[in-house]
């Protein structure tokens, strides 16, 4: 369901209570785990219920709870839900995982000899509310933080949230290393292509992809960048900017050439390794004055002093920088502000002539944006209560300063918009949601906003700050964020090691409802739960077959012996063995234990005759079992979360 559908862009507000905020573990020890949280904003719940591993522990009217029924050495997951006076349940908080440490000086009663002389308690914040819990040992041996020696699950989590899934090489390189170091690698390594992976081919078999040869090759070039990226974070950021500063090929106002230039433009604000000083402010300025696709798509090119066009000015406030309303529901800007900003953005002309007058020679200035002082609204402009000074003087060439009017006005306008108190939280919330499953804690938002505003709207510290936040590891044992269709698709291609050829991915992208370069409207893709409906999950499942065809048929190497490309046949393989082999062949992604059990049961349904037979039919049946397992691991419900 696209953003501009029958239902409108925003779903109706829910009447139920929001989730309690800032759930945290105040203390943990073998005697108990203490949780604290804050009420949902603006609400006074009647009581809260604390849930542990899916089961209710009890209720409390205070904003804290101590669970004394914990056992040392065990790991628990807690969440809290608020209830109103009518006993209606509100939303659940994101869960918090806690491991109860084993204590050194109090041996477990009844089991002498098993007391563990291991290190004492981990994170503890002494709390006056539970004085009965003994305070920890005075001089604890420093425990390596889990964030200093990442587990495989943590490495996978980062490479999914900030990329398209891990390769085994990436796991080998980063397991046991520091979270902070991997984040630094992600934000500082310039984008590059892994040339050891197979390059894509056109339908005709050519390996040189010309993105300007047509829409298929244009898309192939981008998919390839994502698939073969050494550092995936720049590619994920380009996808983010594409759904934020939106253009689309779907209404015919943007040519392929401009779309490609637009994508490359966004790369300069995504490849933070190569452009560490990138700022959102400069991005906003350039989207306004130096991007042909944006100019055409949002009618900046038609915005003149005599015929102002408000489209871009409205969208830059509503969609790109502020949002229509603040979290409390007040309007962030008025129609007058749109009018004023429109005036500030006048005069930027786009050269839309693809050919010169002879209709044959390509126009070298096609897509070039120039400022025309004659089309500029010279009087003073008021935006968000601030005044952009008027310009005076001649509009013709006798006044050399007039070429600066446009840049001055746009700079002033952009600065005014970004200085709006709602800008930072608007952008940061959206960026946070790209990488994190739960809402951003207020303290984190405040800290990131302050830093972002203080350093001139820089992107690298902001992205780094988000990725360094340990919330990213929340619900590690059961991934809890939907993979957007393109991320899922590239993930499947990488997992299988499938080379890409021709135009086989366009259909899947359409069916999964995310076709790059083609968002449905200027709001981009709605995202979140809207990615999943009965049609799109079918499409996600079916996409694995496309990747299997690319990987295991001889379509890529047209002259090879066809059977040499097939997945190997292993005669006599048991169900457990084939499941393990299929699982390994797709990079050992996360699947739940219950899923694994079902897949094993499926693998066992192969008849004994087919399991051990030598006939062609038996070989095909065995091989198909392998493919089916791959399809369910990658394309089943578990494969949709990261």
């Amino acid at each position, binding site marked *: 369901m696209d953003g501009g559908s029958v*239902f409108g862009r925003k779903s109706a507000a829910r009447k139920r209570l929001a989730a309690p905020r800032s759930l945290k573990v105040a203390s943990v020890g073998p005697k108990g785990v203490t949780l604290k949280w804050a009420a949902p904003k603006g609400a006074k719940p009647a009581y809260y219920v604390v849930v542990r591993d899916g089961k209710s522990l009890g209720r409390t009217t205070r904003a804290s709870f101590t669970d004394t029924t914990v056992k040392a050495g065990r790991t628990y*997951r807690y969440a809290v839900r608020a209830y109103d006076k009518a006993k209606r349940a509100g939303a659940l908080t994101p869960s918090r995982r806690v491991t109860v440490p084993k204590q050194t000086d109090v041996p477990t009663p009844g089991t002498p000899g098993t007391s563990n002389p291991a290190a004492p308690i981990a994170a503890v914040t002494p709390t006056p509310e539970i004085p009965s819990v003994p305070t920890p040992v005075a001089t604890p041996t420093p425990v390596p933080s889990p964030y200093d020696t990442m587990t495989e699950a943590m490495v996978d989590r980062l490479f999914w949230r900030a990329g398209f899934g891990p390769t085994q090489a990436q796991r080998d390189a980063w397991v046991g290393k520091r979270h902070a170091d991997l984040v630094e690698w992600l934000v500082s390594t310039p984008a590059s292509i892994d040339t050891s992976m197979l390059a894509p081919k056109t339908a005709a078999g050519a390996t040189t992809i010309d993105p300007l040869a047509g829409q298929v090759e244009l898309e192939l070039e981008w998919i390839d960048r994502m698939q073969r990226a050494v550092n995936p974070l720049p590619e994920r950021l380009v996808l983010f900017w594409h759904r934020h500063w939106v253009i689309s090929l779907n209404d015919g106002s943007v040519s392929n050439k401009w779309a490609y230039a637009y994508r490359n433009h966004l790369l300069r604000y995504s490849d933070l390794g190569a452009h560490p000083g990138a700022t959102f402010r400069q991005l906003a300025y350039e989207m306004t004055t130096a991007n042909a696709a944006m100019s055409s798509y949002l009618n900046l090119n038609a915005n003149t002093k005599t015929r102002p066009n408000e489209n871009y000015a409205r969208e830059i406030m509503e969609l790109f920088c502020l949002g229509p309303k603040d979290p409390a529901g007040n309007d962030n800007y008025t129609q007058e502000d749109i009018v004023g900003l429109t005036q500030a953005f006048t005069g930027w002309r786009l050269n839309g002539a693809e050919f010169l007058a002879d209709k044959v020679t390509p126009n070298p200035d096609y897509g070039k944006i120039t400022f025309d002082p004659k089309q500029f609204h010279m009087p003073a402009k008021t935006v968000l209560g601030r005044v952009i000074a008027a310009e005076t003087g001649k509009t013709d060439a006798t006044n050399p300063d007039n070429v600066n009017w446009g840049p001055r006005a746009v700079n002033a306008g952009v600065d005014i918009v970004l200085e709006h108190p709602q800008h930072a939280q608007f952008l940061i919330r959206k960026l946070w949601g790209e990488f994190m499953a739960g809402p951003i804690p207020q303290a984190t938002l405040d800290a990131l906003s302050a830093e972002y505003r203080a350093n001139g709207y820089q992107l690298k510290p902001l992205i780094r700050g988000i990725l360094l936040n340990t919330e990213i590891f929340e619900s590690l044992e059961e991934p809890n964020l939907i993979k957007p269709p393109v991320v899922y698709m590239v993930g499947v291609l990488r997992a299988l090691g499938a080379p890409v050829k021709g135009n086989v991915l366009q259909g899947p992208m359409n069916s999964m409802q995310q076709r790059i370069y083609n968002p449905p409207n200027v709001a981009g893709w709605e995202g979140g739960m809207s990615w999943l409906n009965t049609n799109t999950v079918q499409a996600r499942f079916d996409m694995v077959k496309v990747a299997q*065809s690319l990987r295991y048929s001889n379509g890529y190497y047209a002259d090879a012996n066809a059977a040499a490309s097939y997945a190997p046949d292993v005669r006599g393989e048991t169900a457990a063995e084939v499941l393990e082999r299929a699982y390994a062949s797709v990079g050992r992604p996360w699947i739940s234990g219950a899923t694994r059990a079902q897949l094993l049961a499926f693998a066992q349904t192969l008849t004994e005759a087919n399991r051990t037979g030598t006939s062609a039919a038996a070989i095909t049946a065995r091989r198909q079992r392998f493919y089916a397992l791959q399809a369910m691991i990658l394309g089943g419900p578990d494969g949709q979360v990261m």
Partner: protein
Amino acid sequence: MERQRCIECEEIELARVRDQPPSQTMPVPYQALDGFPAGRTPRDLTRRRLLQWGIAGSASIYGAHQLGWDQIWDSVANANEAENEKCLVLIYLAGGNDGLNVMIPTEAADYAAYVAARPEIHRAQGVTPANGRVGSTPLAGPGGGALAFANVVVSKNGGGDNGQARFNFAAGGDGYGLDTLYGDGTGGPGSDLAVLPAVDAKQYSLSHFDNSDIWFAASNDQNTKTGWLGRWIDRNGKPDNPLQAVSIDTALSKAIRTERNPVCAVPSLSMSGFTNNPGGAVGGGSSDLNGVISQLAGIQAGAGNAYLQRSRYTYGLAHTTYMKVKSLTTTPSPTPTPTATPVPIAYPNTGTLSARLKTAATLLAANLGTRVITIHWGGFDTHTGQLASQDRQMAEFSRALAAFRADLQARGIEQRVATLVFSEFGRRVRENGSGTEAGTDHGIGGLMFAMGSGVRGGFAADWPGCELRELQPVNSATQGNLQVATDYRSVYKAVLDEWLGEQNSQSLLGGPVVEDLRRGDQLTGRRLFK
């Protein structure tokens, strides 16, 4: 699968609306196809409920205004409760179907001229001879003196060839063919197929582009954007029910393009379920994974993991919806009569045409206010290798059409559905090429069919003859085309007046005064419908 060449893709593309994107998309809930929930209120079809029930398909709406969800389903519910109205299914054979090799001349001199012009690809008279050349069966009744069916469209039970092994159609369907629909050709009960040879625009063009615009827009003015049925919808349709005219395609057909009232395109309703079938190309086969997926979907996710829960839930719902839609698109068993054992309905295969006809039958049976359905089917631009491709396609067509009719009967709606089949022009009388590469070039005077128990079957339009002296330019062996005996607008007029109940079809069709259709069997009274 029919031989597709690039030009066919172009054909289908030209018949679609390309310069206007859909104004919005709308999921079609499964519940709408299965009747409305008890209480008949579309309030139940809110977005939240929709997610619970599952989506059977997705409609791209083309309308002048954005429509609200409640508004649409209110209108659909009203249509559902109102009296059942007559519907038209329009099937467009894209590329210029060669009518002369489907309806063969029977009169001696005519037939001799036909054979002389088509040494390679002509049909034999009578049963298919040993050399494999397709035979022909004269039309029953008055039309037999002029035309015969090529045996590739005649049912196996009727002595025809459309059940041949080389077509590899699904089992069953021996009783299906154009002959069974044609009946005795008298236009009475059981005579439910009308044959109209040599229909075209009296002012014609041999270019695909211009002609398909003429047929779809029914206007000689190239600036007309609306379709002839679109204008009918604008005049008689509802302002808020996009399902009143549906193109079973990824984009809207120009025939139903409107200026105001909403119409839509629905590519398909059937879902494939969860099947992994990479096939022989990778040394594999096919696995029906519906059972396993529904198990995986039932696994409980951890508390608070809303996304994984939603993922599993949606897979489960997709599975359930698939099973339900499958049961809806599978034709109900025909009611047994006291005298006859019900014969299972067998569409020829699950290729494009059959799938679309099944979708059409499901939509019409759901009674959502649909008045017009359009289906485009490509592959008829047979410049070379005509026999190999056209024989197969027309065999499939004849069986699919008869199966569609039986499908509608089993669903109890056949009496209010009429099907009109056309192609944008015919082909040259003289063949080109030689041997297996023989084919025909663009010509004039296409073949049309109308089918349904409401149709006055038989020989429904003049046959101009294909002797040299009867061609245009006259006596030209190489360039000669059939005379245009019937203007296509006469056929449209008959459909609008006699079936769709239009009072003033002349104003819808515009242009010079439209002549009434003149039947080939000279019967008077109603022209095309009983």
